[in-house]
C-alpha cells in the first residue's frame, strides 16, 4: 500500500477565497491511500516546503499530492524540494486548484466540489506513479543564431563574449536587418546607423563569431545540446575569400535594379552591396537580374574588371552541416503589405503615400535624397505632411488585431523630423491612442507636441488626390467633427508582421506560432525567451512586436539562457518521455511518422521466436529528442507505447476517480 500525503495550498486568498479549503482537507482524508492531509497558506514558500519535508519523515509518506497552482508554475519547485528528501521527485502530482478552479469559478460550493474532484483524481493518479530518473547527455558548446538583425547580432555578441563559438546566419547579403535602415532612434535621437554598424562590425570581426550571410537554415535534427543543422549557402558568384570589396564591379555593372534597402526609392546594380556599410563589405550577384546569369546578354563585365578575379559565374548553392548546442531565433519582422488591404488609402497608386521605413530612408543622410525630405513623385519638399498611425495594427477587420508597439514612438519621431527639417512645415498625426510606455518616451512625445505637431484623434477614412494635393479625410473623435487635411505627403505607420518564411523556421525547429504567426514563447511571463523546444530561444520581434531596447534586452536574455546551457558539461534529460514495450510493438512505424520531434526511429532487433532466431523491426525513442507530447501513445494501436509520468494506467485511474 502506498502512503500518500496531500497538501492543500490557500495561495493567499487566490484559492481560499473561492474554494472551501477545510472541506477539501476533510474529504481528502478519506481518499484511498491518503495517510496525511494538511493545508498551508503558501505551500511554495520556505515554511510550506519545510512542512512537506517534515510530514514526509514523520508520516513515512512515499508520494505526495499538492493542491495548488498550475504545475507549469511550481512543479519544478516541488520536484526540487523532493530531491532533498527520500522520495523520488516524480512521486508527485499537482491538482491545479488555482488556474483550473478558483480563478475560473465564482460559485464557492461548486468550485469546492470541483477542487475535491481534482484532488481525488491526483490522489488516484499518484498511486500509479513510479520513480523516474533523469539521464545526462553531452553538450556541444556552439550556438546558432538565425537572423542577423540587431537581435541576432546582440545575442551572437553576448554568447561570443562569454567565450563560446557562434554561427550567425543571415539570409540577406549583409547583417543589419531593419535597424540599419533607420535614421534616428527614439527617444534619444541618436543615429541608428552609428549605433548599429559598430555592432555589425564587432560581430563580423569577433574571433568567436562566424558570420554566414546569404545563408538559410535548411534542415534541423537532433535535440538540445546536439542540434544537427544544415545551412544552405546561396550562390553569391563572388569569392569572398579573395574579394577586397574595392567596388569596381559595382561601378561597371550595366544592369540597374530597384534597391530593396532603399525601399524601392533608388537603384542598385545587379552586382551589389545592399548599402555602403554592409558587413561583410563585399558584393554579391543577384542572379535574377544579372544579364549574364539570366541569359539575356553575354556581359560578364564585372568578371573582366575585377582586379582579384573573384567573380565566378559557375558558383552554386552549398550545404554546410554542423552541430550546435543551442539555437537563437531572431528572424524579425517586415511591414504589412498595406497596399493590398487599404484601397481607401490609394492602394499604392499615389507615390507620395509612403510607409514608415520609406520615410526613414528619405530622412536618412545616406538615403536616396541624402537626408532631405523630398516627395518621391516630383522631388519637391512637402510642406504639409500627414502621419497615419495604426495602419494594419489594431484593425482586426482589415489588418491585425494587435498593437505594433513601436509606431506611436516612431510616428512622434517622424513628426519631429518633419518639423525640424522643413521650414514652416505642418505635420498632422492621426492616431487612435498615444502609447508611450517606456523610459523617456512620454517626454519625447510631449516635446513633439511642443514642436508643433498636430495630433488628431481618429482614423483616416480616405486618401485621394485633388489638385496635386493628397486629401486625407477622417474624423476628429474628440470634437466629433470630420477633418480634411490637404497634404503633400502621407506617411503610413504600418503594422509589423512576422518576416516571410517564419513558418519554415518554426516548422524546422517545431516551435508553435500564435494566430498572427508570431513565434510562441514557452510561458508569456516566466519563460519569455524559451520555446517549447528545449534549447531553442527567441530574440526580438519574431516573438511579437517590440522596439529596439526591448529587442536588445530580449536578445541578451536569450544569450544568457544559451550560456546557461553551455556552462554545464552535461544536460539532464526530462524522464517523462515515451517508452516502447517491444513485446507489443508490431513495427508498423506509425509512431515514427507522427512524431513531431523526429524522436522515434525504427530498429531491427534480433529475437528468438518459436525457437527460431528472427529479426524484427521495433520502435525506439531517443530520450534527448522526445518532448513527452504523447502523440505516439495516441497513435499506437496495440498500445505498445506509454508516456512515463502520464501512463495510460495513470490517466485511467484519474478518469475512474472522477466518473465511478
Amino acid at each position, binding site marked *: 500500500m502506498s502512503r500518500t500525503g496531500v497538501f492543500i495550498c490557500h495561495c493567499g486568498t487566490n484559492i481560499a477565497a473561492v474554494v472551501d479549503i477545510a472541506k477539501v482537507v476533510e474529504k481528502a482524508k478519506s481518499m484511498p491511500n491518503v495517510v496525511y492531509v494538511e493545508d498551508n497558506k503558501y505551500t511554495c514558500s520556505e515554511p510550506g516546503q519545510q512542512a512537506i519535508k517534515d510530514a514526509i519523515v514523520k508520516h513515512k509518506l512515499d508520494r505526495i499530492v499538492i493542491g495548488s497552482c498550475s504545475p507549469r508554475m511550481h512543479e519544478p519547485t516541488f520536484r526540487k524540494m523532493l530531491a532533498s528528501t527520500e522520495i523520488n521527485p516524480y512521486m508527485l502530482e499537482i491538482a491545479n486548484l488555482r488556474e483550473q478552479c478558483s480563478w475560473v469559478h465564482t460559485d464557492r460550493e461548486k468550485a469546492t466540489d470541483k477542487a475535491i474532484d481534482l484532488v481525488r483524481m491526483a490522489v488516484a493518479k499518484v498511486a500509479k506513479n513510479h520513480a523516474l530518473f533523469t539521464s545526462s547527455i553531452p553538450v556541444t558548446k556552439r550556438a546558432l543564431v538565425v537572423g542577423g538583425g540587431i537581435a541576432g547580432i546582440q545575442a551572437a555578441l553576448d554568447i561570443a563574449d562569454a567565450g563560446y563559438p557562434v554561427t550567425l546566419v543571415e539570409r540577406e547579403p549583409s547583417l543589419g536587418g531593419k535597424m540599419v535602415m533607420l535614421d534616428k532612434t527614439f527617444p534619444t535621437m541618436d543615429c541608428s546607423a552609428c549605433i548599429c554598424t559598430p555592432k555589425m562590425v564587432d560581430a563580423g570581426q569577433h574571433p568567436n563569431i562566424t558570420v554566414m550571410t546569404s545563408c538559410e537554415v535548411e534542415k534541423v535534427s537532433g535535440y538540445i545540446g546536439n542540434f544537427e543543422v544544415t545551412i544552405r549557402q546561396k550562390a553569391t558568384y563572388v569569392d569572398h575569400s579573395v574579394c577586397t570589396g574595392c567596388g569596381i564591379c559595382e561601378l561597371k555593372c550595366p544592369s540597374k535594379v530597384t534597391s530593396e534597402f532603399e525601399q524601392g526609392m533608388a537603384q542598385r546594380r545587379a552586382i551589389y552591396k545592399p548599402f555602403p556599410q554592409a558587413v561583410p563589405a563585399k558584393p554579391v550577384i543577384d542572379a535574377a537580374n544579372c544579364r549574364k546569369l539570366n541569359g539575356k546578354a553575354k556581359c560578364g563585365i564585372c568578371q573582366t574588371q575585377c582586379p582579384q578575379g573573384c567573380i565566378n559565374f559557375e558558383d552554386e548553392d552549398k550545404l554546410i552541416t554542423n552541430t550546435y548546442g543551442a539555437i537563437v531565433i531572431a528572424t524579425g519582422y517586415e511591414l504589412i503589405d498595406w497596399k493590398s488591404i487599404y484601397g481607401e488609402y490609394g492602394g499604392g497608386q499615389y507615390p507620395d503615400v509612403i510607409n514608415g521605413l520609406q520615410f526613414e530612408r528619405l530622412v536618412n543622410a545616406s538615403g536616396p535624397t541624402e537626408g532631405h525630405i523630398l516627395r518621391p513623385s516630383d522631388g519637391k519638399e512637402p510642406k504639409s505632411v500627414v502621419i497615419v498611425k495604426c495602419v494594419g495594427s489594431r484593425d482586426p477587420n482589415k489588418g491585425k488585431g494587435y498593437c505594433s508597439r513601436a509606431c506611436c514612438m516612431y510616428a512622434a519621431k517622424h513628426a519631429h523630423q518633419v518639423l525640424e527639417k522643413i521650414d514652416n512645415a505642418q505635420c498632422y498625426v492621426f492616431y487612435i491612442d498615444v502609447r508611450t510606455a517606456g523610459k523617456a518616451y512620454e517626454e519625447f512625445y510631449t516635446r513633439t507636441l511642443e514642436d508643433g505637431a498636430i495630433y488628431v484623434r481618429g482614423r483616416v477614412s480616405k486618401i485621394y488626390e485633388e489638385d496635386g494635393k493628397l486629401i486625407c479625410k477622417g474624423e476628429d473623435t474628440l470634437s466629433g467633427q470630420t477633418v480634411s487635411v490637404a497634404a503633400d505627403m502621407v506617411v503610413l505607420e504600418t503594422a509589423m508582421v512576422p518576416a516571410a518564411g517564419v513558418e519554415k523556421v518554426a516548422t524546422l525547429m517545431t516551435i508553435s506560432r500564435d494566430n498572427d504567426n508570431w513565434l510562441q514563447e514557452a510561458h508569456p511571463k516566466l519563460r519569455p525567451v524559451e520555446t517549447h523546444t528545449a534549447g531553442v530561444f527567441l530574440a526580438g520581434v519574431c516573438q511579437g512586436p517590440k522596439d529596439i531596447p526591448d529587442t536588445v534586452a530580449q536578445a541578451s536574455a536569450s544569450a544568457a539562457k544559451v550560456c546557461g546551457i553551455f556552462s554545464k558539461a552535461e544536460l539532464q534529460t526530462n524522464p517523462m518521455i515515451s517508452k516502447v514495450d517491444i513485446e507489443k510493438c508490431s513495427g508498423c512505424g506509425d509512431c515514427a511518422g507522427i512524431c513531431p520531434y523526429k524522436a522515434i526511429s525504427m530498429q531491427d532487433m534480433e529475437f528468438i521466436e518459436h525457437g527460431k532466431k528472427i529479426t524484427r523491426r521495433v520502435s525506439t525513442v531517443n530520450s534527448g529528442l522526445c518532448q513527452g507530447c504523447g502523440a505516439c501513445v495516441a497513435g499506437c494501436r496495440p*498500445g505498445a507505447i506509454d508516456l512515463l509520468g502520464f501512463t495510460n494506467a495513470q490517466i485511467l485511474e484519474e478518469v475512474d476517480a472522477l466518473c465511478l
Partner: protein
Amino acid sequence: MSDIQQELRKTARELLESGEVGYIIGWGKGRFANQTHPIFVKDPAKVDELVWDDYCLSTLAKYTQDDKYPEKKIGICVRGCDSRAVNRLIQDHQLKREDVYLIGIPCSGKLDPETNEPAKKCVECAHRNPVVYDVLLGSPVEEVPQPERFKEVEELEAMTPDERYNYWADVYDKCIRCYACRNVCPACNCRECYTDQYRVGWQGKQNNRAENQIFGITRAYHVGDRCIECGECQRVCPMGLPLMKLNRKMLKDINNLFGAYEAGLDTETKPALGHYETNDVEEFM
C-alpha cells in the same frame, strides 16, 4: 473462368516444381457446390485442388501472417482486394515483398452463396484488377466506378443523434465478440491485439452493449486509414453486423480532411493518419 482455373493450376505446378515458392495460398472447393475455402497447396501433385469459380470470396493475404518468416516465398492468388491487402501488409512492415510471389487474377465479382446474387462486397468493389502481381492470369477486366461509395454513411449522418445511437445500440447488442472481423482483416496485424491484452482498463471483456460498442468504435479507429474496403469483416460477421458503415465513415472523414484517399493501392502513399503535413487542417488548434 475455367480457362483461368487451368492456367492457375499450371502456374502453381510450375512454381512448386521449380521450388520458387514453398506453398501456394488459393481457394479450394468446400463440401457444397456454392462454397470455397482458402487452401494451402504444397505438393505439386495436388494443384488440381485449386479452384477459381464464382464463390472464391475469401481474401487471402492475411494468411501470410501465420508464417511471417517463411523459408521460401509464399505464392498467393491475388485479385484487386487481395493485392491491396498485400500492399497494406507490406506498408505496415508485416510482410516483405520479396517473401511473396503474387499470382494476379482479374476478378469480375463473386456470388453470395446464400442468395446466388453478386456479393455485396464485390458490388461495392472499385478495384477489380490486382494492383500488384508477379504474373497475371487472363486479361484485365473493366473497372466499375463507385459513385455511391459513401451513400450508406450519408444515410447514417442524416439521422438524429438519438436515432443514430439507437441504430448502433441495436447493432452492438447483437455482437458476440467472436473477433472474426479482426481475424480476417488485413489492417488488423498487431502482434497482440488490444482486445487480447490483460488489464486494458478501457476495454472490458464482458459481452454487453457498452463494452461491445467500445470494441466497435476502437476497431473502426484502429483500422481507420488502413481499411482497403475489401468488406471481409462484414462478410464473415456471423451476426451480420454492418461493419463497413463504420469503416467507411472513417474513410469519408479522411477523404474530407486530407483529400482523395484509398488505402493499399501502392506501398508509397503514406497512410493518411500515419504521418502529418505542416499544412494539415488544424480546426481544433
